[in-house]
C-alpha cells in the first residue's frame, strides 16, 4: 500500500522551521563570537595599559635596571574584575622581579607595542600582555621584557552571560520564525484549502464547472477538473438521450402488444387464454413503468447539474397534477382533494424535477389506495418552508423504513401484486435533496401513508 504523502502544510512548516533553526544557531554563534572578542579586547586594553605603565617606570643606571612598580597599574586591572594578576620583568633573559615561570611568547619578535596571547599558568587560563623596552645600562642597551598576566575567570563569566543572552536571542528568533512560518503556511495554502472546500461543499449531483477564483499554480488542476466534469456531463447527457431513444423504440411495439392483448382478452371466452392475456398486459404495464421511471431518474441525475433555477408556483403545480391525475384516480373511484393551494407558494427550483417528484408520490398514492378513498394533497408554507403532503388511505409502509424504501429498486414488503419499479421514491428523495429540502415518509394516523416533501422557501 502506498503511504499518503505528507500534508503540504506540515511539509512547508517543517522546512521553514529547519531554516529558522539554522538561522537561529548562526545568530547564536555570531553573537557569542562578537561578544567574546569584545570582552577580550577590553581585557587586552587594560592589560596593555598596565604593561605599558610598568614599562614606563623602567630606569637604566650604571649598575642595572631598576623598577619602581606602579601599583596603580595593578589597581586598574583589579578594577575590571577580581581576577588574579601575575607579572614578570626580565632583563637580558633574567627575571628581575615577578613570577619567573610566567610563560612568554616563544617566537615573537621583541616589540614596543604590547603583544597579547592566551596560555595556561598554574592551572588558570590566563591572558598575557608582553612588551619590550630597551633600557640603557652603562650606555649599553639592555632588552627588558615586561609581561603582565590576568586570569580569565571574569572574562569567562562575561562570555557565559553573553552566551546565555545569545542563546535566548536565538531561541526568541526561532520562536518568532516558527510563528511566522505557520502564518505563511496558512496564507500560502489558503487558496488550496478554499478550492478544496468549494469542491467539497458541492452536492453529489452538482456538475457545474468549478469557477472558484484560484491562483495561477492551481489553474491546471481546476482546468482538468472542469474537463472531467464536462466529460461526465456529456456521458450523462448521452445516457439520457439513449434511454429516451430506447424508451421510444420499446414503447411503440409495447403499445401494439397491449392493444392486441386487450382485444384478444375481450374476444376470448377460454379461461386459459384470458389468463395469459392478463399476464401479458401486466408485463407490458410493468416494463413501460420501469422505462418511464428509469428515464425520470436519468432526467433527475442529468438536470441536477444545470438546474433550471426559476420560481415555481407550487400551488399551480399541485392543482395541475391533481387535474391530470383525476381521470386515473377516477377509474378506481378515488377522489383527489387539494387544500392550501388557493394562493401562490413560490419556491426556487426546477419545475420539471419537482413535477416528477410529485407525480411519483401521487402515482404511488393512486396505486396503493383501496377504491373509494380520498387522496389528500395539501400545501402549506410555514417557518420558511413549503410543505407538500400527499396522504392516502393505502396500505402504509408495511414495516419498512423510509431509507430502505427509497433505495433503488427496493419495494415495500406489502406491495403484493401492484406493478412498480422501485425507483419512484428514489427519484423523490433525490429531487428533495437537489433542492435543499427533505422528504419524509410516515405511517398515517388511521391507516395509510403520509408523504411529505419539504422545500426551502427562498
Amino acid at each position, binding site marked *: 500500500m502506498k503511504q499518503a504523502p505528507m500534508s503540504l502544510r506540515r511539509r512547508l512548516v517543517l522546512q521553514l522551521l529547519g531554516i529558522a533553526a539554522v538561522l537561529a544557531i548562526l545568530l547564536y554563534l555570531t553573537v557569542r563570537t562578537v561578544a567574546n572578542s569584545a570582552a577580550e579586547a577590553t581585557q587586552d586594553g587594560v592589560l596593555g595599559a598596565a604593561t605599558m605603565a610598568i614599562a614606563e617606570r623602567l630606569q637604566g643606571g650604571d649598575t642595572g635596571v631598576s623598577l619602581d612598580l606602579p601599583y596603580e597599574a595593578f589597581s586598574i586591572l583589579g578594577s575590571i574584575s577580581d581576577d588574579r594578576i601575575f607579572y614578570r620583568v626580565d632583563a637580558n633573559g633574567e627575571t628581575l622581579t615577578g613570577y619567573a615561570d610566567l610563560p612568554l611568547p616563544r617566537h615573537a619578535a621583541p616589540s614596543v607595542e604590547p603583544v597579547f596571547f592566551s596560555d595556561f599558568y598554574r592551572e588558570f587560563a590566563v591572558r598575557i600582555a608582553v612588551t619590550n623596552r630597551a633600557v640603557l645600562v652603562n650606555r649599553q642597551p639592555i632588552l627588558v621584557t615586561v609581561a603582565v598576566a590576568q586570569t580569565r575567570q571574569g572574562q569567562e563569566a562575561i562570555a557565559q552571560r553573553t552566551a546565555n543572552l545569545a542563546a535566548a536571542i536565538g531561541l526568541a528568533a526561532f520562536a518568532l520564525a516558527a510563528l511566522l512560518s505557520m502564518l505563511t503556511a496558512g496564507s500560502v495554502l489558503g487558496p488550496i484549502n478554499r478550492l478544496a472546500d468549494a469542491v467539497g461543499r458541492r452536492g453529489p449531483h452538482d456538475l457545474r464547472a468549478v469557477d472558484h477564483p484560484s491562483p495561477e499554480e492551481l489553474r491546471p488542476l481546476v482546468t482538468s477538473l472542469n474537463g472531467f466534469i464536462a466529460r461526465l456531463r456529456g456521458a450523462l447527457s448521452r445516457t*439520457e438521450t439513449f434511454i*429516451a431513444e430506447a*424508451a*421510444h423504440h420499446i*414503447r*411503440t*411495439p*409495447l*403499445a*401494439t*402488444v*397491449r*392493444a*392486441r392483448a*386487450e*382485444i384478444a*382478452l*375481450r374476444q376470448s371466452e377460454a*379461461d386459459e387464454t*384470458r389468463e395469459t392475456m*392478463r399476464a401479458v*398486459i*401486466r408485463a*407490458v*404495464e410493468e416494463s*413501460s413503468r420501469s*422505462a*418511464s421511471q428509469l*428515464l*425520470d431518474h436519468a*432526467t433527475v441525475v442529468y438536470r441536477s447539474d444545470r438546474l433550471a433555477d426559476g420560481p415555481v408556483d407550487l400551488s399551480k403545480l399541485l392543482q395541475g397534477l391533481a387535474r*391530470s391525475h*383525476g*381521470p*386515473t384516480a*377516477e*377509474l*378506481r*373511484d378515488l377522489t383527489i382533494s387539494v387544500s392550501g393551494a388557493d394562493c401562490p407558494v413560490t419556491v426556487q427550483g426546477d*419545475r*420539471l*424535477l419537482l*413535477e*416528477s417528484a410529485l*407525480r411519483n408520490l401521487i402515482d404511488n398514492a393512486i*396505486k396503493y389506495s383501496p*377504491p*373509494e378513498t380520498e387522496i389528500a394533497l395539501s400545501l402549506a408554507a410555514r417557518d420558511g418552508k413549503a410543505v407538500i403532503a400527499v396522504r392516502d388511505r393505502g396500505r402504509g409502509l408495511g414495516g419498512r423504513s423510509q431509507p430502505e424504501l427509497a433505495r433503488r429498486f427496493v419495494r415495500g414488503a406489502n406491495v*403484493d*401484486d*401492484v*406493478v412498480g419499479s422501485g425507483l419512484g421514491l428514489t427519484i423523490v428523495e433525490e429531487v428533495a435533496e437537489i433542492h435543499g429540502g427533505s422528504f419524509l415518509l410516515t405511517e398515517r394516523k388511521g391507516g395509510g401513508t403520509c408523504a411529505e416533501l419539504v422545500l426551502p422557501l427562498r
Partner: protein
Amino acid sequence: MRFLLVEDNPELSCSVADRLRLDGHAVDSAASLSEARDCLAAAGYDLILLDISLPDGDGRDFLKSERRAGRDTPIIVMTARAAVSDRVDVLDLGADDYVTKPFDFAELEARCRAVLRRRGSALQTVRAFAGLTFNPLTATLTIGPETRELRNRELRLFEILLSAPDRIFSKAHLCDRLFSYAEAVTDNAIEVYVGRLRRKLEGSGARIETVRGIGYRLVAE
C-alpha cells in the same frame, strides 16, 4: 365518440383503432400530418389522438398550427418519449392531455371523457332507456324528476350493460373492463358494483338481471 387517430406505425394504428372500435367508437386513421389535415377537412371529430413523431413532421408543430388557426378540436397526444419535459411541452402547446405509450384504454377513455367534460362539449351522448336518461359525460342518471350521480365504476358498468341491452355479460368480462389489470380482483368484486347500480336504477324501468352461473344483463321491464 368519433376519433381521428394520427399514428404512423401501421400495426399500432390498426390495433388502437380496433381496440377503440371494440368500445363502440368510430375511428379514422391517418398515417401522416397531411392525411390528418385531409381528414379534418372532410369530417368533424370529437377527439384527435396525435402521435409526436410522424414521417412528415412533428406532431407538436401540427398542434401549434391547429391552435393558431383557431381550430379547437380536443387533442390528446400519445407520446412514447415520456420524458418529463415532453409531457410539459405538449400541454403548453395547447394539447388537452397526453397519454404515454403503451396506454391503458380505460385510462384513455377516462381522459377523453375528462377533456370533453372540461370543454363543456356539445357532444350529444345522452341516452334514454326504459324511463331513464343517462349522461356519461356528467355521470348522471335522470329518473323522472330525480338526478342521481354515478361513481366512475358504476358509470362504466352501466355503459357496458347499456351498450347491448339483453345481452349477457360474464363476470370475468365485466371485471376486465372495470378493474385495471394490475389489480388482483376476484370475479365476485363485480357484485358490489352491480348491487350499487341496482339501487341507483330503482324507480326506473331498467333492471339488472342475474343470469345464474353466467353473468348479468340489462333488461327493460
